[in-house]
């Protein structure tokens, strides 16, 4: 089976979906001739031509808005927003239009647009190329929010998103775009939107995470296993909305302890929802406070990126804290 990076898996996924279905249209800034600034759309322009791989003017609200109109007509647009930070100029189109079209039209018009966008830190992108805005979108009914952490899932979840009937914010952890390779089948396949993935089974505490944080939590868990004999279960949420409540609650019922790790600003980040979910539905199973390791409640700094972002050692420390509680 071919080994691919997460980025290559996405590229592969786009090619697969475009080959299967001529309703699928890719559009965005620099996605055509240039193949995307991260090269996620590399080769698509040559293979599918300018009508299906559209270089657009510099307007994210235009990109998302036009994609909505295309979807209303019956196409399946897959716009790329160059950085998740630049979804904000399109915020109104995403939050007021894309997410609500089906509802407000009484079900007459659907908008199955899949917005792909790289997010998160780890490439020294500073304030405006590093943000993790997933919580804005998980707080917006009508949207699904999906974040893969492995090449296999990236291709499979993208397929499921594109074939689905709902708008999806498909966020790609750019930090691990190229950092490792793994098996990715040539054939097309779907990884369903919804179910979480147990990245590692464990019995002492549950770590909930997604995207680039999964790898980092694995490192921290390794250290905790080696040095403290802690058996951590790592739950890769994959789909943030609708969340796999059952997997979250089952894991925490088993281990009795919960740690949530995310890069976004801690306050009101997505991890708050997971914590609140547990505190509402599994409190009696808890043997320790629910801890969150998040990004700082500051903008995302350039030089001091490493201060902002969760680090394996910070996660390790948090594991120790949670385990120390009696």
């Amino acid at each position, binding site marked *: 089976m071919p080994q691919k990076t997460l980025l290559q898996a996405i590229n592969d996924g786009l090619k697969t979906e475009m080959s299967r279905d001529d309703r699928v249209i890719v559009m965005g800034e620099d996605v055509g001739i240039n193949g995307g600034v991260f090269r996620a759309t590399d080769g698509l322009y040559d293979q599918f031509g300018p009508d*299906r791989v559209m270089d657009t003017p510099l307007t994210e*609200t*235009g990109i998302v808005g*036009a994609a909505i*109109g295309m979807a209303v007509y019956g196409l399946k647009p897959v716009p790329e927003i160059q950085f998740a930070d630049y979804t904000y100029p399109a915020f*109104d189109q995403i939050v007021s239009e894309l997410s609500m079209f089906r509802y407000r*039209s009484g079900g*007459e018009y*659907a908008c199955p647009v899949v917005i792909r966008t790289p997010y998160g830190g780890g490439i020294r992108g500073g304030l405006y190329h590093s943000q993790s805005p997933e919580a804005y979108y998980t707080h917006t009914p009508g949207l699904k929010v999906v974040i893969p952490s492995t090449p296999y899932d990236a291709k499979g979840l993208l397929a499921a998103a594109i074939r689905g009937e709902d708008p999806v914010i498909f966020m790609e952890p750019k930090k691990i775009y190229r950092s490792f390779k793994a098996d990715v089948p040539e054939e097309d396949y779907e990884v369903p939107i919804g179910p979480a993935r147990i990245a590692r089974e464990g019995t002492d505490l549950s770590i909930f995470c997604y995207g680039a944080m999964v790898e980092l939590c694995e490192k921290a868990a390794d250290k905790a296993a080696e040095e403290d004999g802690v058996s951590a279960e790592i739950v890769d949420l994959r789909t943030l909305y*609708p969340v796999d409540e059952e997997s979250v609650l089952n894991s925490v019922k088993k281990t009795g302890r919960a740690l949530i790790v995310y890069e976004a600003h801690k306050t009101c980040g997505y991890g708050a929802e997971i914590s609140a979910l547990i505190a509402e539905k599994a409190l009696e199973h808890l043997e320790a406070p629910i801890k969150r390791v998040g990004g700082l409640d500051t903008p995302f700094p350039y030089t001091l990126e490493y201060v902002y972002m969760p680090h394996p050692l910070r996660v390790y420390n948090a594991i120790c804290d949670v385990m120390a509680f009696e």
Partner: protein
Amino acid sequence: MSDNWVQVMEEGAASYDLPAGLTEADLKQMYEGMIMIRAYDERALKLQRSGRIGFCVTSFGEEATQVGTAHALRPDDWVFPAYRQYGVPLYRGASMTKMAAHLFGNADDSAKGRQMPAHYTFDEHRFVSASSVIGSQIIHAVGCAMAIKYRKSDEVAVTYFGDGASSANDFHSSLNFAGVYKPPVLFFLVNNQYAISLPVEKQTGISELYKKAEGYGVHGIRVDGNDVIAVYKATREAAQRARDGKGATLLELFTYRVGAHSSSDDPTRYREKDETAEWKEKDPIERMKRYLQQLNIWTEEYEAEVWEQCRTKLSVAITKAEQIGDPPWESAFENVYAEMPSALEAQKQELLDRESGLELNNEGEFPL
């Protein structure tokens, strides 16, 4: 008449030829269409004033912008309206009962009572649901037209929006996309000279809004928006250009908002009565009537009959609509997604289990 100013019926009277292949039947149809809108508005406002519906929008004085455009389009052309263009589905033959259902936001409303009145949706008439966010629908029309072009179809997508909307983000993104991709889209900029209280002079630094098109390489034109035949003619030509692959046109339909912004608005706070009176003189229905008179196809009886029919149609529909109750409360949970996620199902179940706390609990008043 300059190159960029389309007017057919002179304001006083005049020009007796039937333009652009219009038959007498066409003219009558348009005239009746405008009266239907007028009657609809009068009734809606009454319903609102007597507390039978919560809110309404009227389009007094802007009937020609809706009827003239609608008459020129094909039924399979896509319409992305603002809230003031319900005359278009009315003209396209939307069920009056459905129209009324929307005013009440009842169980029969095609928007399922989810939107405020004046946010109609009719997929069978390609009249696409709009939000209340000013200007956001314009780019949807452009995207739809890009899809039409991709499919090599000969439909046209059109969108309506106001002078106020010309300041919004998506006016800009839309005109820009239209200039770049040249899709078959028509922009109807209904310049009724007000955005709630803001006169158009304070909305933007030029007075002829169609000129905004130039900066995007899009064809722009100004039309007498109170002259239904001019509106028809200009739309017809622009649609043909679009179908011929020649791209977009921005049509500024110059008119005046004779009524209040909505049932919540009080225009005496910000404009002079004289100004409004002056524009009442230019009423598009009266203007058409004079035209029909000169063509000798107007009589008092005809007029009375048209009004009578419109009013009856309305009364029947409203009586019916008023008997239909609210949408079932469970319907609030539907259509958020193609399939209801289990967490939402659970929220529904929670209410179902209790069925308490489900009474109306409003205190405020809608202000605009």
